[in-house]
């Protein structure tokens, strides 16, 4: 969330050793959501942001990884090499090493079957998309499991 171009200056109240920070590059959607959540918690935006930064910093490097996964760790280490050697290829990493490289998902699937690998990390190098993927809004309200005995 924090852009590289962060400008800061020492606050007038230097005794408290706090900084005023301007953050660039925050998406309007994320900002609106953050502001709304802060309001819901009865916090001023600045206090919510301060808390968020402090809690993120306190959590340490572990927050960058969602789950502990040796295949993912291998991927992180191999990423530059994968991009250089296998851009556009379909690859699979299992048991902490690169096990298959293929031109298509179908071919990769056949290789996994041949190698008897039932669980792997896989991607088409340089072609996958992650991050903010859109919303899941109306459905989350409308689709609560309201069971009924009445047939329509």
């Amino acid at each position, binding site marked *: 969330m924090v852009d590289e171009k962060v400008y800061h200056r020492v606050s007038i109240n230097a005794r408290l050793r706090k900084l005023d920070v301007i953050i660039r590059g925050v998406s309007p*959607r994320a900002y609106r*959501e953050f502001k709304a*959540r802060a309001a819901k918690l009865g916090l001023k935006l600045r206090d919510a942001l301060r808390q968020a930064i402090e809690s993120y910093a306190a959590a340490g490097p572990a927050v960058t*990884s*969602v*789950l502990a*996964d040796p295949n*993912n760790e291998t*991927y*992180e280490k191999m990423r530059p090499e994968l991009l250089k050697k296998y851009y556009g290829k379909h690859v*699979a990493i299992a048991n902490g090493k690169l096990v298959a490289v293929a031109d298509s*998902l*179908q071919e*990769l*699937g*056949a290789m*996994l*079957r041949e190698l008897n690998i*039932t*669980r*792997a*990390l*896989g*991607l088409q190098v340089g072609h*996958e*998309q*992650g*991050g*903010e*993927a*859109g*919303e*899941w*809004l*109306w*459905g*989350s*309200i*409308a*689709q609560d*499991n*309201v*069971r*009924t005995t*009445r*047939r*329509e």
Partner: protein
Amino acid sequence: MGIYRAGQCSNHQTGVAPAHPVLKITVETPSGREREVLEAPIDTGFAGFLLTPADVYAKLSELELPQEYFPAYLTLAGSIIMRRAKVRMRVFGKVLDSFIETPVVSFGRLLVGRRILNSLSLAILGPDLQTCELHPAS
């Protein structure tokens, strides 16, 4: 716009009120070793692919994406990060290389989102309680 003819149809789920339009989707792992036939409720409010409960995801996630490609969806309760795995799907005979997803935290549910719906020509025939594939009538 053109004129379309309805082909195969999926019947609505009628155990919920009101009845829910669904798509019958066959999901297969890339190796073809695991396969599930799912009746996924249609959710035009979900921007993703095929959301599945955790147990279904565990069975079909033979080839999961790296964590840096786990998507985040905005909900009314804040952002939810999903795991995502590559699968092959068959919907009304059409084969799609696509994804299944499930929340990293919490159990998930079965829903088909817009990233799949937008690749299909469909008609929801509410009074008939059916969702049908459409073909151009030539």
